[in-house]
């Protein structure tokens, strides 16, 4: 009888801890989103409903949660926001759709985005993003849509992106990319217009030859 009571207590404590942990997790995602809000300048007030005192961000506008109150979509396309994306977004581990297109976002694409294992759609097009396309994006194994067009991205297209076997649509046009276009994996299906208007892009990579550094 005596040994049973402590184990019950332990179980109760664990349950409480779990409950607190779950609650905390939802709040963690709210904290991550709030950190993003702090980075952004929001003249249209689209983030006004983002109240960190709420138990989770699931009733914030432009945020979509699943049945377990985990954030699965962030829809801020065409919202006139500026600032940088920042690494905090990578804490939304269940995120499937990251829609930040057609804004005035600057800075680099955070390499931490590579942690979003469930990401299906990455739409950062029509912003003012600079820097390279991070190699870590090759870890987005669920990714089907990658649209980074109409930015100021430089550097080469990481060959590792060919590992994204689920990738159906890519758009890297209208940037400042250089080097060659990968040809293996899903890249064999992409039309050339997905890469157009990159003045320093040299065309499809020629396989079988010694790689030539084009000074990219």
């Amino acid at each position, binding site marked *: 009888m005596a040994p049973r009571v402590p184990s019950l207590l332990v179980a109760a*404590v664990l349950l*409480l801890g779990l409950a*607190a942990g779950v609650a905390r997790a939802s709040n963690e995602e709210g904290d991550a989103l709030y950190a993003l809000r702090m980075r952004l300048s929001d003249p249209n007030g689209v983030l*006004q*409903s983002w*109240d960190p005192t*709420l*138990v*989770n961000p*699931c*009733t914030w*506008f*432009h945020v*979509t*949660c*699943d*049945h377990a*109150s985990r954030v699965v*979509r962030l*829809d801020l*396309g*065409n919202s006139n926001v500026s600032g940088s994306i920042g690494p905090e977004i990578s804490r939304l581990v269940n995120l499937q*759709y990251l*829609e930040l*297109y*057609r804004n005035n976002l600057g800075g680099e694409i955070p390499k931490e985005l590579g942690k979003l294992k469930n990401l*299906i*759609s990455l*739409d950062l097009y029509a912003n003012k993003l600079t820097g390279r396309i991070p190699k870590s994006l090759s870890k987005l194994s669920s990714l*089907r*849509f990658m649209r980074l067009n109409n930015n100021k991205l430089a550097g080469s297209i990481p060959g590792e992106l060919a590992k994204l076997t689920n990738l159906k649509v890519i758009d890297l046009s209208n940037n400042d990319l250089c080097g060659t276009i990968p040809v293996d994996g899903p890249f064999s299906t992409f039309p050339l217009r997905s890469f157009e208007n990159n003045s320093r892009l040299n065309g499809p990579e020629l396989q079988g030859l010694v790689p030539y550094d084009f000074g990219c």
Partner: protein
Amino acid sequence: MKRIHLLISCTCFLLSATAPVRANIHREAAALVNWKATLAGDDGSLASWSLPNSTSLCRWLHITCDPKAGHIIELDLQDVSLNGTLDELDFSAFPHMKELRLNNNGLHGTIPTGIGNLTSLVILEIDTNPYLRGAIPRSIGQLKNLVQLQLAFLGLDGTLPEEVGNLTSLEALQLNSVTLTGSIPVTIGMLVKLDSLDLAHNNLTGNIPWEIGNMTKLLLMDFSWNYLEGQLPRNQLGGHIFPELGNSSLLDTIKIAKNNFSGLFPSSVYQRGALKTISAGYNGFTGIQQTFQNCTTLVSVDFTANNIVAELGTIPSWLSRSLPGLRFLLLSSNIFYGIIPHQILQFRELQLLDLSKNRLTGSIPDDFTNFTGMIQEQEPIEIEFLYNGFDREVIEIIWKNAGHAYNLWKGVMVGMDLSDNFLSEEIPNGLTTLLGLRYLNLSGNHLLGCIPNDMGNLVLLESLDLRQNQLSGGIPPSFAALMSLSVLNLSYNGLSGRIPTGRQLQTLVDPSIYSHNLGLCGFPLEGCMNSSTSTRNEVGQAVDREALWLYCFVAAGFVFGFWLYWGMFLFYSETWRCAFHQYVDNMQGKATKKIYSCMSCFWSTVWC
């Protein structure tokens, strides 16, 4: 000499006068230090608490002293990571303490009976110490000066002691989420100064004592999330809760959701002037007695998931101009029948309308020109709810296909849910003028006709659910303008044509949201073959043509066979019949001979 004597005696006298005071302060310091020694941990801010330091007691962290007398009047140990019990704290050392706060720590053990020694206490707050157990001590009744008693999110058990009725100065009683069991003691009626009564999220059983009617200053009453039951008495002997509460013309908030109440929700509740919130969801109410006739101040009415059987249109006073401030009307999951009356359009401030899961018939009203609550985007102005407690004004809404607790405080959500009824006829064009809508759910009805062309005007719409209706025609091209849409469902209708393309629409990639329609095509479904007609239509036509030919041939075969046999009876004369038969026989004979000869030829060549 005499002067010196006088001086010395005066000083001695003064010293002796202050001695007991100093001794008391020393006692307070000793009590705190002795208690601290029993704690397993804290966050380090108690380092200044030590006996050598006792002369500077009033400068210790978390302590506030009376500036003149020097004794402790406030002890604020919120968020100090205390790990230990209260058992060794000598409460009798603090006869002058006015405020004690122990929120957000790791205290365990029980609340000791010694707490009754804090006779000057005005405010007692012990929340969020999940390991604090045991019952509320009866000695709590000794705290005659207590104005605010707040115990929440504790692991307590046991009942609310009757002695709580002795706290006649009490203005706020908040015992939220402390696993109280048993029933509410009738002595609670002695707390006539109470303005806030919060017993939510416990395991209370039994009825609400009618003595609560004595609380004429009550602003908030929250009994939600318990197991309370019975009927709320109407004008009957032996039970006059709410008629008595009518005496509390200040009553602002009634929260009794998630209990087992039954019967009629009495009218006398809302006969006075200040009621803003009625939260009575998830009970077993069967009706709402009379109407909210004189209740012009109502802002939020929630009767979700009861057993109310009523014709929606015959509660006219609800829906009359006497509710100008109504913003949230939630009547989901009841048995409301009849049509949605036009009077509902008179609620100028209405932001959230939920009539889902009822038995409503007829058409959706069309004239929304007065619906200012939904026509424009709502600014995040704090709606004045007096209650500043734990549950705030939280309701559950189904938002983007999942249930979420929505906080009414900021008041920005705008939505309409009429799903799972028997509504018919077309979706009115007037709905497209409600530009403030963030969600619209009309699924599970018998709506027909086309989706209004101007649906794309609802640029704030994040969730649109029209599934399971009989809508026909195409998806309006204006859908491409729905820039905020993150959840869409048009499945199980009769829609056809090309799915519009758009920047936001192309992020809705799940084909099941368009499934079970007549002939939709385009991303994310199969591509459209033809610019004017869909592939499905063409294939359908081809199949039809094939079927037609099949029928023709079968008919021809039947006619031929019929005449071949029965046509012979047209030949009246026997000679003609015989001649015909002979002819046919001859032909057969010739054909057989020919085949035979050919075959023998063939076999001979093979075997040779």
